[in-house]
């Protein structure tokens, strides 16, 4: 693999189908997902569907050449942060200089050695091409997560929950499961107690005591009836 991160997507923009095929095979062997485009226009369409982490760009193309595209790529959001490597038969210093000045991270002259190509691609790859969006601490989005658990013990007042999550004390939580439905508790609400959860060393999980909130008399009677079979 070129890098440890997955998936790795590389976009090849080259009007020469043989050149694209060779590159595609080479990269495919490295476990990379390859998108191919024969023109800048097609390349942009591909990128907008599946944003790549790297672009291999030919310079000499009929509709729009590589240098023109390099000039305007920052205006395309899915391509703005992506590193571009030029792969071209043009070996004159002007072309190389212009490409680098326009922000290409590297320049490979055709024909190239595959080991050199792989090394340059590896060097250009960023683990997080598109960066990290940090939310404003004053307005963080609220989310719900669902984890599995097991009810170990139940009484008329509370239950003991085992879970791989150490649930914070004095927290409102939602629990659903077949056993609770059997007790007629289809939409119960629960509150963990003030004590911190205890740790079960042998299975690396936590035991939390959870109070019932708003339990009906019918629910209590059902639990009480079931408790005819005490441990």
């Amino acid at each position, binding site marked *: 693999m070129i890098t440890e991160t*997955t*998936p790795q997507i590389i976009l090849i923009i080259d009007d020469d189908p043989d050149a694209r095929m060779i590159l595609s095979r080479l990269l495919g062997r490295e476990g990379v997902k390859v998108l191919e485009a024969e023109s800048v226009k097609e390349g942009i369409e591909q990128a907008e*569907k*599946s*944003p790549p982490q790297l672009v291999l760009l030919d310079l000499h193309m009929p509709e729009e050449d590589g240098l023109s595209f390099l000039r305007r790529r920052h205006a395309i*959001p*899915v391509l703005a*942060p992506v590193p571009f490597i030029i792969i071209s038969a043009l070996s004159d210093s002007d072309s190389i200089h212009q490409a680098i000045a326009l922000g290409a991270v590297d320049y490979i002259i055709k024909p190239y050695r595959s080991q050199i190509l792989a090394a340059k691609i590896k060097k250009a790859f960023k683990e*997080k091409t*598109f*960066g*990290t*969006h*940090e*939310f404003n601490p004053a307005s*963080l*989005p*609220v*989310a*719900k*997560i*669902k*984890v*599995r*658990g*097991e*009810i*170990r*013990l*139940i*009484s*008329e*007042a509370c239950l003991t*929950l085992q879970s*791989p*999550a*150490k*649930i914070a004390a004095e927290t409102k939580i*939602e*629990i*659903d*499961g*077949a*056993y*609770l439905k059997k007790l007629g508790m289809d939409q119960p609400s629960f509150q963990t*107690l*003030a*004590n*911190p959860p*205890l*740790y079960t*060393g*042998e299975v*690396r999980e936590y*035991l939390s005591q959870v109070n019932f909130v708003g339990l009906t008399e019918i629910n209590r009677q059902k*639990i009480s009836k*079931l*408790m005819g079979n*005490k*441990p």
Partner: protein
Amino acid sequence: MSTLPQSPRALVIDDDPDFIQLITVALKTLGIAVDAYQEVEPFLLHLKDHRPTFCLIDLHIGEVAVGFSVVKSIREVLGNEIPLIIASATTDPQAIAHAMELGADDYLTKPIHFSLLAAKMKNYISSRKIAALQPPFMTVPQSECSVGIELEVKILAIDELGVTLGSRHLLRKGLEIELACPEAKEYFGRDHISVRVASNSLDVSVEVNAAGDTIETSGYRTYCAYDPDDEKLFDDVRKWLAKKTG
């Protein structure tokens, strides 16, 4: 045969004799007697025959971070019987999270604030008394005991490999969770995603309020990675990130 303490008793391991002297005096003022050791072996031997109310464990004995293995060993042998509190000078949030994942119940950063110590000790002692007063319980049949637990978290950050969550819950590394939020469609292109917990670090802030009480606020930053085989998710997240930074 192990003996249970009638009055609260702490078992301490720390290689710093000054700290031992300090914590002994501090805990005695709270009515807690102290047995203290500077080396691991006599500490563990003591634990074999006695059950303290809680243990206070230094992470580093000498140059070595043996505290982690002490916590792990105690949990493997004694299960959840005794609260374990780490006391250490390190503020490395990942080290703290690792100690919690191994089974430590709490963490005190040296130098220890007396009022914080007092509040935590009160909590651990009262939890033992409350445990003794519980109503009769019934075990739930193994075939029926599985449940789904829904917890509230905040999303701190999103990147193209995963999402950072903030909450007071510690989610064990490797745990698979389902994440949903009203904005999920916008961020991830779908109503909910499955992620796997990759790492935790502890966020602790200590402040003194107007009344002079030391208040500790702690939470966890949990990094959860996307399913590496879910190519569509990576595409949708990258598109959203590109729009945000573009």
